[in-house]
C-alpha cells in the first residue's frame, strides 16, 4: 500500500457532503415520511375486516419483502417513466431523474417494512379500547385517528427509527442507477483520482459514525419511552 492519501479526502469532503450527503439525507427523510404514511395505510388495510382489502395489502407487502432491493430499484427506475406518462396522458415515457425515481422506489419499498411495524403497533393496543371507542359513537376513522394510531405510533417510535437507520444505509444502493448520493459522489472522486482505498474507507467511516450514533440514540430513547406505559 503506497501511503494513505488524506489529501484527496480533504479536497473532496465539501463536495461529498454538499452534493452526496444532502442527496442521501433528503432521500432518507422523504422516503421515511412517505413510507410511514403509506405503511400505516397498508397496515390498516391488512387488519381490515373486508377481506379483499387485507389480501391486496398482504400480497403487496409479501411481494416487496421477497424481492431484493436492488431489483426493486431497477423495476421502478424503468417503470416510473411509463407510469408517469400514463398518469399525465403522454404517449412516450416521461423523463424522471434518479432522485425522484429513488424517492418513489424507497417510499414504496420501505412502506412494506413500516407496514409490518405499524401492524404490530396497532395490534399492541388492547381491543377493549377500540370497543370502548366504538361504543362511545366514534366511527372507524375517529377511532383510528384519535385513539389507536397515536398510541401505536408512540409504542413503535424506536422500531420505526431503527428501520429508518436501515433505510439510511440502504439508500447507498442507488449507486446501481448511478445517482450521486454519498457513496456515488465518493465513487466518482475515487475513480477520477484513482483513490479507491481512501475514498471507500472514508465512506465506511462516515456511515459507521452516523449509524452508530443514531442507533445509540434510539437505544436511549427506548429506555425513556418504555417507562411511560
Amino acid at each position, binding site marked *: 500500500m503506497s501511503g494513505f492519501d488524506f489529501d484527496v479526502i480533504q479536497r473532496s469532503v465539501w463536495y461529498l457532503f454538499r452534493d452526496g450527503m444532502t442527496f442521501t439525507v433528503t432521500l432518507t427523510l422523504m422516503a421515511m415520511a412517505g413510507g410511514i404514511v403509506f405503511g400505516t395505510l397498508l397496515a390498516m388495510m391488512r387488519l381490515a375486516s373486508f377481506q379483499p382489502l387485507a389480501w391486496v395489502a398482504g400480497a403487496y407487502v409479501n411481494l416487496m419483502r421477497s424481492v431484493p432491493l436492488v431489483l426493486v430499484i431497477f423495476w421502478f427506475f*424503468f417503470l416510473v417513466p411509463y407510469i408517469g406518462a400514463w398518469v399525465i396522458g403522454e404517449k412516450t415515457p416521461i423523463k424522471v431523474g434518479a432522485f425522484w425515481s429513488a424517492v418513489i422506489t424507497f417510499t414504496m419499498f420501505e412502506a412494506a417494512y413500516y407496514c409490518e411495524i405499524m401492524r404490530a403497533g396497532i395490534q399492541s393496543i388492547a381491543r377493549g379500547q377500540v370497543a370502548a371507542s366504538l361504543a362511545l359513537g366514534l366511527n372507524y376513522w375517529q377511532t383510528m385517528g384519535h385513539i389507536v394510531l397515536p398510541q401505536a405510533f408512540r409504542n413503535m417510535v424506536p422500531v420505526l427509527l431503527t428501520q429508518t437507520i436501515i433505510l439510511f444505509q*440502504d439508500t447507498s*444502493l442507488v449507486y446501481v442507477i448511478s445517482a450521486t448520493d454519498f457513496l456515488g459522489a465518493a465513487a466518482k472522486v475515487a475513480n477520477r483520482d484513482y483513490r479507491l482505498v481512501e475514498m471507500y474507507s472514508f465512506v465506511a467511516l462516515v456511515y459507521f459514525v452516523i449509524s452508530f450514533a443514531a442507533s445509540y440514540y434510539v437505544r436511549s430513547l427506548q429506555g425513556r419511552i418504555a417507562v411511560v406505559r
Partner: protein
Amino acid sequence: MNYNWNWGILLQAEPGGSGSYLQYLVVGLGWTLATALAAWVIALAIGLVVGTLRTTPLKWIVRLSNAYVEVFRNVPLIVQMFLWFFVLPEVLPTGLGDWMKQMPPPWGSYVPAVLCLGIYTSVRVAEQVRAGIQSLPRGQGMAGTALGLSLLQTYRYVILPMVMRIMLPPLTSEFMNIIKNSSVALTIGLLELTGRARAMQEFSFQVFEAFAAATAIYLLTNLVVVLGMRALERKVRVPGLITAQGAGAQ
C-alpha cells in the same frame, strides 16, 4: 401503456451463446444460491460463536464481540462489498493482494462477495443467537451448573440445543435475506440473478420481461425456502413447546 411486450424473448438465444435467456437467468439463480449458501456457512459459524460469546460472563470477550457486531452492522452492505473488493487487496501484503486481484472471473468477484455477505450476515445471526440464549429461563443454565457441568458443557449440552430450535424461524428470514442481499454482489461484477436480469435488459431492451422473470424466480426460491424450513422446524421440534403450527395442528 406504450410498451411492446414480447415474452418470447425468454426463449431466444442470449448473445453470449450459452443458450436461451431463460437458461441464462437460471444459471444466474445458480450463482445467487452458490453465493448465498457459501456465505451462509460462514455466517452461521461466526454468528453462533460471537452470539454465544456475548452471553458469557467474560467481560472483555463480550466487549470485543459487541464491537465486532457494531462495526459490521453500521456500515451499508454495498460499502462493505467495496471494502472487500477494492480496498482489501490493496491493504493486504502485496503477494496476497495481487493473488486476490488476479483471480479469474467469476471467482474474483465471487470470493469477496461470499466473504462480505458471510460476515455481514454473521452479525445478524449473532444477534439472533444472543436473543435466543437470553430468552431461555435463567434456571436452565443454573441447573447445568448445579449438576456440575462446566460453562462449556452447559452451553454445549443444555443451552445451545434449545436455542438452535428457538432460532429456526428468525434464521429462516435471515437466510432469505442472504439470498436477497447477494444481489448487491452485482456491483462488484458478479453475474448472479439480478445482475443477469439487468444484462438481459441491456442486450434485448425487453426491460419488464427480464425483471418480471427474475422476480418470479426469486418468489419461487422464497417459497421453496419457506416450505423447506417449515419441514425442518417440524422435524426438530421440542415436544411440548408451542410452535407456529404445533398449537393448531395437534
